[in-house]
């Protein structure tokens, strides 16, 4: 059997653990730059008259009127809380696939002698006890069915967030219950096409001939079809696949007209992505840099451009990457515009130890791996960009994202610990 465990409205729940005054009240979490709502708890979702997908500045007054508490995203906190959940899950199975920040698959093969429902309840209760985070658990013979069981655990109140699909009858019942759009991996386009031919429920889908599914929905659809019929064909990926591209594209806190500060932001983003590059032990061959004005603005002149640099020798050296990215940026920058965003993206990623030298260049750069390692160790220990390229400058606060409502980093910063008991003298 396979378990699918996910946290209920994870970001909002993380915030609420430390804010008992908000228990049972609507809470939402905003995207980077506080642009829009990216997470809402159950109570907030019930306020259906609030257009949650609108830009925050348009609906802020409605949120305040309805006493919805909003937080800027605090990924440091969410990441650390997620780590706790995953660690606890690994005490239930040696094989845990972390699927996303708040979801994981557990391989429960070989545990056939135990009561699966009790095991699932134990997972839910232990995670709640240790971390304060509520989770749902679905247990079934395949990943796609486990995902469906998880959905049932959440949607059907009598299951109390744990559902085990352990018999053929229960599988059929689940397929009759689930709409085709509820199935993990069936996108909106396919839903429309399937509905057009009278497939509305998951049970209708598994009755389609395999040949049709294979032809119309490729091997991906075929796997889903088989998984829904109880035949496991999605493997566990305990070690995540290395990324094929690493990039970041965050808006500035304000519009920037001058090249200087944009260069600093660009260097900062390169520093961030280069760090990720080194953690997965890869080197990049191409750097893509793009620059944008704010296309929502009606008063600004509009301009955007992008360019790509090919490195003669792939590298993960922050300084080398910054130098190249800066040249790229200078080549597309035009004065007279107010820029909103610079994006950097590293592609052509190859394993660190497969880097090919260049006949016409010295390979002395390789020595800098020591420098990079030292940099990474220092920054991990003392905080992001404690030691970094001077290109980042000291004006970070002038272009950095706005995170006005960010909660303290309760679990990673000694100076931001949860404070209690302020009323006493």
């Amino acid at each position, binding site marked *: 059997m396979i378990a699918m465990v996910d946290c209920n409205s994870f970001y909002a729940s993380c915030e609420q653990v430390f804010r008992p005054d908000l*228990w049972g009240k609507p809470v939402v979490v905003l995207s980077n730059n506080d642009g829009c709502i990216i997470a809402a708890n159950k109570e907030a979702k019930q306020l259906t008259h609030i257009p949650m997908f609108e830009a925050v500045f348009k609906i802020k007054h409605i949120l305040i009127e309805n006493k919805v508490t909003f937080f800027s995203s605090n990924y440091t906190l969410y990441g650390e809380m997620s780590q706790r959940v995953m660690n606890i899950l690994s005490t239930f199975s040696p094989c845990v696939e972390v699927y996303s920040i708040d979801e994981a698959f557990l391989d429960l093969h070989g545990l056939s002698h135990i009561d699966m429902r009790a095991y699932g309840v134990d997972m839910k209760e232990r995670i709640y006890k*240790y971390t304060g985070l509520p989770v749902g658990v679905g247990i079934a013979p395949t990943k796609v069915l486990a995902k469906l069981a998880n959905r049932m655990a959440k949607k059907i109140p009598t299951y109390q967030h744990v559902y085990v699909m352990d018999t053929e009858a229960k599988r059929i019942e689940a397929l009759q219950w689930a709409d085709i759009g509820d199935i993990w991996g069936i996108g909106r386009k396919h839903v429309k096409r399937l509905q057009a031919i009278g497939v509305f429920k998951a049970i209708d889908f598994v009755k389609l001939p395999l040949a049709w599914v294979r032809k119309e929905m490729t091997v991906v659809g075929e796997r889903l079809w088989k998984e829904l019929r109880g035949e496991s064909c999605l493997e566990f990926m305990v070690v995540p696949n290395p990324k094929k591209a690493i990039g970041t594209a965050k808006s500035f806190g304000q519009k920037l007209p001058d090249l200087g500060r944009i260069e600093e932001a660009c260097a900062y983003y390169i520093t961030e992505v280069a760090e990720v590059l080194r953690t997965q032990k890869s080197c990049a061959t191409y750097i893509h840099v793009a620059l944008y004005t704010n296309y929502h603005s009606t008063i600004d002149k509009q301009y955007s451009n992008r360019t790509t640099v090919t490195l003669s020798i792939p590298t993960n050296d922050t300084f080398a990457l910054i130098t190249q990215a800066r040249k790229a940026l200078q080549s597309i920058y035009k004065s007279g515009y107010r820029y909103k965003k610079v994006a950097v993206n590293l592609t052509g990623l190859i394993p660190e130890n497969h880097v090919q030298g260049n006949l016409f260049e010295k390979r002395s750069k390789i020595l800098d791996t020591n420098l990079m390692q030292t940099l990474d160790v220092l920054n991990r220990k003392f905080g992001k960009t404690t030691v970094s390229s001077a290109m980042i400058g000291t004006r970070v606060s002038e272009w950095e994202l706005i995170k006005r409502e960010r909660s303290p980093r309760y679990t990673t910063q000694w100076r931001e610990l*949860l404070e209690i008991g302020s*009323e*006493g003298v």
Partner: protein
Amino acid sequence: MEIEVSGKVKVAKDRHQAEVSKQTGFPSAATHYMEAPIDLNEELSIHKDATFFVRVKGNAWKDFTILDKDVLIIDRSLTPGFKDLALVVQDGSFKVLRVPFDKDQETCVLWGVITYIIHDAR
């Protein structure tokens, strides 16, 4: 001639292993007595997936020897026993209570068990 780094200059990486002098002369007298240094995480049995640190403001709980600016180590994995100090939530705010709770405190929700109180002596 090859010059090698003397064995004694190298820092012993694994401190559990007895240091053995590679030079001639007497081996370290501590050879058979090496132990790992004290690790507070271990001594205070900090269960890192269930432990949170919380800072106290004010002297509302001085009866429990919890003072202003103290940091509490809270272990959520524990079930509070007799006379334990517990961090609880009552009417949406945090409180420190001694187990067993009084009748009027029974509505509160347990947040975690206080295992240690860190007091800055300077």
